[in-house]
């Protein structure tokens, strides 16, 4: 029963969804304040979610299964990542060898679900968005995984999440070293693309291809896609904090420091979002393959040297 509680209530679905909605509100509010507006109330994501649940659901002819399963698989994979990370954060001896690899795989599933869901909806704008999403996935996934080698090398080749965390608690945070700081910067750029935020919101480009892959979604499936996107807003910065900044410790005052780390990363991502224009897909590809990837390789070499 414990694992069911873990998955559904505390570090899993309900907890992640609540914090994700709060993060989404923070995003919209901060964006509004930067643009000199007032912004929506705190419960706005909840209203949006409930309203979408109450709307009619329209499904393209002949694609029922895939069209509905895509958002659900996206939601489930994000929930599993959150559950794994928080379990290891609270009890570092939980987890298994190779759970880092499982986490990296699960973090790509929201993008893949978007690709599949957009492709079965048979809309020309959606297929345009899908092709861009595939290219974006190819461009940011390479530096993201290379940068993830750095903590692994520094912790002596362990691919267990718990070992990475306890190593940081005993020997100082990875971000404190040169290689760790460079890898952290690379991962921040990749997060921006993983969240599909503005310099890299090419697949969804609202003013250009009308939300791309999501264009045919309505009602409950759209609500689930939105929710999984909001949860990603919580899970991805959490994963970065876990890998490079020693996670969040729940002992006494340390929790405030942990919340501060999360708000710093989230605020940075949002400020980059509101102050930048959208790039083209070829510019994004060039940026990630010829800009971020060599930087990540440099970080890996530095980590091997021991800097």
């Amino acid at each position, binding site marked *: 029963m414990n694992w069911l509680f873990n998955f559904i209530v505390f570090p899993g679905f309900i907890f992640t969804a609540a914090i994700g909605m709060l993060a989404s509100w923070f995003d*919209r509010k901060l964006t*509004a304040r930067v*643009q*000199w*507006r*007032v*912004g*929506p*109330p705190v*419960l*706005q994501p*909840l*209203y*949006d979610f*409930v*309203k979408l*649940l*109450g*709307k*009619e*659901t*329209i499904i393209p002819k002949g694609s029922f299964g895939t069209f509905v399963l895509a958002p659900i698989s996206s939601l489930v994979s994000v929930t599993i990542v959150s559950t794994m990370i928080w379990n290891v954060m609270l009890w570092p001896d939980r987890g298994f060898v190779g759970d880092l690899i499982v986490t990296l795989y699960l973090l790509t599933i929201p993008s893949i679900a978007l690709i599949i869901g957009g492709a079965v909806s048979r809309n020309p704008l959606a297929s345009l968005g899908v092709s861009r999403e595939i290219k974006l996935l190819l461009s940011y996934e390479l530096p993201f995984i290379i940068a993830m080698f750095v903590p692994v090398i520094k912790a002596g080749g362990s691919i267990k999440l718990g070992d990475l965390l306890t190593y940081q608690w005993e020997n100082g945070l990875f971000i404190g070293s040169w290689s760790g700081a460079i890898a952290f910067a690379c991962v921040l750029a990749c997060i921006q693309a993983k969240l599909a935020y503005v310099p890299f919101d090419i697949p969804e480009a*609202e*003013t250009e291809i*009308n*939300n791309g892959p*999501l*264009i*045919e*979604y*309505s*009602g409950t499936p*759209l609500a689930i896609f939105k929710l999984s996107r909001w949860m990603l807003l919580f899970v991805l910065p959490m994963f970065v904090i876990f890998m490079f900044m020693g996670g969040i410790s729940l002992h006494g005052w340390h929790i405030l420091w942990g919340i501060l780390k999360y708000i710093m990363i989230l605020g940075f991502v949002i400020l980059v979002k509101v102050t930048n224009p959208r790039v083209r897909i070829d510019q994004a590809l060039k940026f990630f393959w010829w800009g971020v990837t060599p930087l990540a390789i440099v970080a890996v070499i530095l980590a091997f040297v021991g800097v």
Partner: protein
Amino acid sequence: MMSVKLKALKRSIWLFHFNSGSCNNCDIEIVDCLTPRYDLERFGIKLVGSIRHADVMMVTGFVSRQAAPRLKLLYEQAPKPIFVVAVGTCACSGGIFASSYNMAGPVDKIIPVDVYIPGCPPKPEAIIMGVVKLLSKLK
């Protein structure tokens, strides 16, 4: 259960904007409502690009013969409940195009309309008032 749905709907209206042959003046005024001065996002109102996400359809312009079938199609493609707001004198009655050869409208001849906002163009305040009247009409 019904009241929860209604309450959520009232606080999260997503607008879809359809130009059925307008001179673009009403469209500019609609976009004005989302600027920092009026900021409709305070009330959860935002502009969406796809009719599948919309709760309210804002139609501007006299409906030309080219636009009429498309307007009807979009209305049928929208997930229910959907509400239609006719923005501008042309959308309400045809305006100066009322006796024109290429007019198939006004809007309520093609699809049912919930709120009429006259004006050439209506001020942003008038548009906001129209949306508020729509919200108070919902039951």
